[in-house]
């Protein structure tokens, strides 16, 4: 099985291929920190990774992509690219949230597995995107857009709690007992190489893959600008 994975949701751009046995795949990937212009970088990066892996599009069995949360535009760049590839190659899609990919990456890097892992991204405008996992990477609370104060309430009491990601410090400071929370890997980003490995053991989506925005669009209904009408 060969899976191509890509991520453009947050502050990085990455593409990777996983090959071989689902439980112990070989991976080839490219990763760069990047706040902007994911749309320019991602296709050349995918082509580069395929060349590095010594395979072509025709050798692929599935396309995996992070569905969000992240910047609205970044999320759509990834989904549009993945859906375009899947359409042109007649391949199934596999989606994973940016936060669960970050969680798996964090658990690999942290030596002592925590009891509770909060993956937190600064969502700006006074909010964070957060999901909570246990020490094995299983989801305990799904991704949400929350104020740091609300985010604290999503963390289970007791046990060794670790927060990772660019919004981790915001949540720690909003806690009544900041010392009880440990912040590590504040620069953590999603990575297609981890996503590709995760996708090897996942069942493809049956429904079209949709972005996970977590926030409504910025738009206010039109009101009261019209001149009054008599009839």
């Amino acid at each position, binding site marked *: 099985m060969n899976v191509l994975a890509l991520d453009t949701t947050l502050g990085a751009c990455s593409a990777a291929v996983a090959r071989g046995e689902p439980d112990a795949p070989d991976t080839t990937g490219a990763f760069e920190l990047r706040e902007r*212009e994911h*749309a*320019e*970088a*991602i*296709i*050349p990066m*995918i*082509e580069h990774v395929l060349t590095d892996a010594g395979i072509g*599009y025709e050798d692929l069995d599935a396309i995996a992509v992070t569905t969000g949360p992240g910047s*609205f*535009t970044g999320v*759509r*760049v990834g*989904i*549009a*690219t*993945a*859906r*375009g*590839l*899947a*359409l*042109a*190659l007649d391949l199934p899609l596999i989606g994973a949230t940016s936060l669960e990919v970050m969680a798996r990456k964090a658990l690999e890097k942290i030596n002592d597995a925590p009891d509770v892992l909060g993956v937190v991204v600064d969502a700006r405008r006074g909010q964070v995107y957060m999901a909570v996992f246990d020490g094995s990477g299983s989801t305990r609370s799904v991704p949400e857009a929350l104020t740091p104060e609300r985010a604290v309430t999503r963390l289970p009491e007791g046990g060794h709690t670790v927060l990772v990601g660019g919004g981790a410090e915001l949540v720690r400071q909003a806690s009544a007992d900041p010392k009880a929370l440990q912040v590590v890997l504040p620069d953590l980003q999603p990575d297609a190489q981890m996503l590709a490995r995760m996708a090897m053991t996942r069942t493809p989506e049956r429904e*079209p893959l*949709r*972005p996970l*925005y977590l926030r409504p*669009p*910025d*738009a*206010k*209904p*039109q009101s009261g*600008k*019209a*001149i*009054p*009408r*008599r*009839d």
Partner: protein
Amino acid sequence: MLGIETSCDETAAAVVLRTGPQQGKILSNIVRAQLDDHAAYGGVVPEIAARAHVEVLDVLVAQALSETGLSWDELDGIAATAGPGLLGGVLVGLMTAKAIASARGLPFVAVNHLEAHALTPGLTDGLAPPYLLLLVSGGHTQLLIVHDLGAYERLGTTLDDALGEAFDKTAKLLGLPYPGGPEVEKCAADGDPSRFDLPRPLMGREAPDFSFAGLKTALRRQAEQHSPLSNQDVADLCASFQQAVGDVIVDRTATAINLFEKRVASMKDRNLVVAGGVAANQALRARLAQLCEKKNFVFHVPPASLCTDNGAMVAWAGAERLSRGLTDGFEFPARARWPLDPDAAPKIGAGVKA
């Protein structure tokens, strides 16, 4: 050639066959408008538009291809609008096109949305450049000489609002439903165009530019004076607005025709093309047709479905570019502003519209 268009509130995909210069045939042309998504807001909301594009575009592309009975390998290239337009939406079409082209090993062509409008008469009327183009839509109002593919000379542009925008704002002001252009035209048919005295901005000026902001303000003032408005008031306001706009368009286009005559040597090329969503307005078309008759120009208007945003024009422009070996790399960016005539000075009040 497959063409993808997502720069505003229409999601569109089409396949066009090009058999030679100014010879083409539309094999499929799928457009999904998002009117209902934006109606409550009285205008296009960029983020809502982008979200809607990404939900349906791949389905429309699949449909556009399957209607032709062609396989991916029978296509010669993939084209998408890369700007100008609403970036969130443009990126959806651009990335879908890049992904397909990369996956199938096909040439990719990044198309300028304005160029797609500008070249449409080649597909619909077999018209070869040079010709004079009046491009009037919700996002643009320009007069251009189309000298050749890729060679455009801007004679005039709006300095503030686009004409379609002026129609939409008028409709909003008068409490008419969205989209406003067709509603204003409908109401104007029952109105007295001489009842309200509205300004004709920039009329008689040497450069064929446009300005609609002052007209909109004058309309608001007149409407406020007669508030609350009767149905007849609304009809008369719409008719007076459309009359003023028509006067301006005819005057500015006549000025551009004079410039075209001076700058284009061959006088057999006396063609005026009107493109863009506002070209659907019958009253304006009738007045431009009259002008052309008077000036001894041939008047061309693509069918309504090819005046508003569509994928066929993008596919056609892509095919024209590909026929000259003009293809683009996958690092091509989405461009909010992408003037057809890079030598023309930007107009501050018009922002990306000029």
